């Protein structure tokens, strides 16, 4: 009796989560796939996929999206790993972590607008460049500024998982490695990095996937000089009302994400939900 009751109770606790997954994850994905088989006149067709894979524009855009997502992830990783490592050495890591997470409390659009102010011709960045004698440079609407701002936004999501895996690392391993005569570099490359690899993988997933579909930043910071699949999806849903084609691109993006998960997988991903824009 007692056991049965416990069983029903634990199933009952699962209901909200299952409902959530069904309504907000599985149903939308199915709808998206369904929608992608219809043309603009509402007829069933495979033409959207044909168009996609026959069009050099869309293929170029896909390459662009993956390339920029890769660059953003790389930049984020190069900054985050040493940060997470040093964080572990500090006296009050929780405080520093809080400071790193703080920017995520601010809306993405507000951060983008703040960067417009910083990077514009009369902005602080250019004032500084003039002050040190380099003179004002065109910063906005360049690939550099786009990757810079995107990396800035993604850094907390990379630092967190890496920090977790570094702080879980037992100091005795490092001591043992040193005792056995390994150099600093050997300790890092043979002991520390392999043991923190799961954190790095989780961080890559958390950063690469949202970066694939960035679209507001491509206009606000990239000035539409960087075109990713997100731009095309927005256009098909809002301007041309060609939901079929928009959904097709969406399905391709989902497939790309599944491939990334699979490549970096092997461990339960600690990806974040929401905040993908």
């Amino acid at each position, binding site marked *: 009796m007692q056991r049965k009751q416990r069983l029903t109770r634990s199933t009952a606790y699962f209901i909200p989560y299952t409902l959530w997954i069904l309504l907000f994850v599985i149903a939308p994905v199915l709808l998206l796939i369904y929608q992608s088989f219809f043309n603009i006149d509402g007829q069933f067709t495979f033409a959207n996929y044909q168009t996609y894979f026959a069009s050099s524009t869309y293929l*170029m855009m896909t390459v662009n999206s993956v390339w920029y997502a890769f660059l953003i992830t790389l930049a984020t990783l190069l900054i985050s790993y040493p940060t997470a490592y040093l964080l572990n050495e500090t006296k009050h890591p929780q405080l520093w972590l809080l400071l790193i997470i703080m920017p995520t409390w601010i809306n993405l659009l507000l951060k983008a607008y703040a960067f417009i102010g910083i990077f*514009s011709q009369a902005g602080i960045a250019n004032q500084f460049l003039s002050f040190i004698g380099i003179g004002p440079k065109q910063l906005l609407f360049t690939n550099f500024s786009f990757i810079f701002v995107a990396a800035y936004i993604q850094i907390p999501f990379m630092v967190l998982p890496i920090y977790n895996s570094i702080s879980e690392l037992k100091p005795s391993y490092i001591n043992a490695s040193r005792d056995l005569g390994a150099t600093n570099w050997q300790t890092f490359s043979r002991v520390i990095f392999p043991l923190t690899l799961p954190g790095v993988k989780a961080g890559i997933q958390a950063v690469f996937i949202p970066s694939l579909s960035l679209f507001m930043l491509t206009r606000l910071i990239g000035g*539409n*000089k960087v075109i990713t699949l997100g731009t095309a999806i927005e256009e098909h849903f809002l301007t041309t009302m060609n939901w079929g*084609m928009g959904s097709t691109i969406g399905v391709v993006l989902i497939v790309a994400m599944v491939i990334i998960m699979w490549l970096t997988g092997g461990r339960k991903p600690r990806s974040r939900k929401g905040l993908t824009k």
Partner: protein
Amino acid sequence: MKKLFSAIIGLLLVCGLLAFGAHSLQTSSGSTGKKVLNLYTWGDYIDPSLLTKFQKQTGYHVNVETFDSNEAMFTKIKQGGTSYDLTVPSDYMIEKMKAAHLLLPLNKKRLTGMQNYDARFMNLAFDRHNKYSVPYFWGTLGIIYNDKYVKPGSIKHWNDLWTKKYSNNIMLIDSARDVMGFALASMNQSMNTTDPATLLAARNKLNRLSPNVKAVVADEIKMYMIQNEAAVAVDWSGEASEMLAGNSHLHYVVPSEGSNLWFDNLVIPKTAKHFNAIYAFLNFMSEPKNAAQNAEYIGYATPNAKAKALLPKAVRNDRQFYPDNRTISHLQIYQDLSPAKVGLYNDRYLEFKMHH
């Protein structure tokens, strides 16, 4: 189990409270009351003091709700959840709404002041005999330049944008119809063409412009131009008038060989309920004094001829915003194209944006 039940009951209670709150909020804001008018319009598109004046004169309280694109407005009216009494679509959208049976015809007997409007802006192709719409504002698509970087008078035509000296110095408005449109106008083609070869040629011409294009952005153009971020921009006259107000170095040109002429007209959507208030408002806005006050506040061009006469001479004779008849005769109004043709414009436009 008990905990779960109380949680569910709690949730239901919260939902009920929220529904009640939403309902009472709606009632207090008056959208279901009697002496009201629900106006659905673009953001910051009417002088608020006129609304107060209207309420004083007629007793009708105006609820203003705003939209930021014709398409968003179309979707909301089509769903029909809210009883909007008046809305302000642009020309091609009036055609589209008419075709979708979303508009109610005007009762001409209840309208006064229609004779105040300039005959050039009445009886246009998108609404013959003004069966459904009363003109509100009109404007153009044109070029804004900063005289700090560009010699005044050196930009007169679309083709001037292709000059090498504006390398990486032009901002474009992110709109397929308008960007493709000015390329077509520069080639002396119709801005409503649906010929694939012509559209391809327009894209090729735009590709040659891309070294000059600094960015393709939206509302931010205003801010950038005011802050001297770029020398030249392509945008609508309404946006331009705000830029000019913010930076005295800016000028606006409508290329004489042709450009887009747009209209925003007041129409009665099928969701309308308060007809006395609607006609009172239409007649109120047709009065020259009120239309002039509105035009001075918003800065757009008024189609009301008698109101224009009341505007200060500097505004009335400003060729930037009230172009001469010869230029107006070359301007083209966008027609509502079929979804497939809109797709064609957008595909070519996307290809141009990719070309960097």
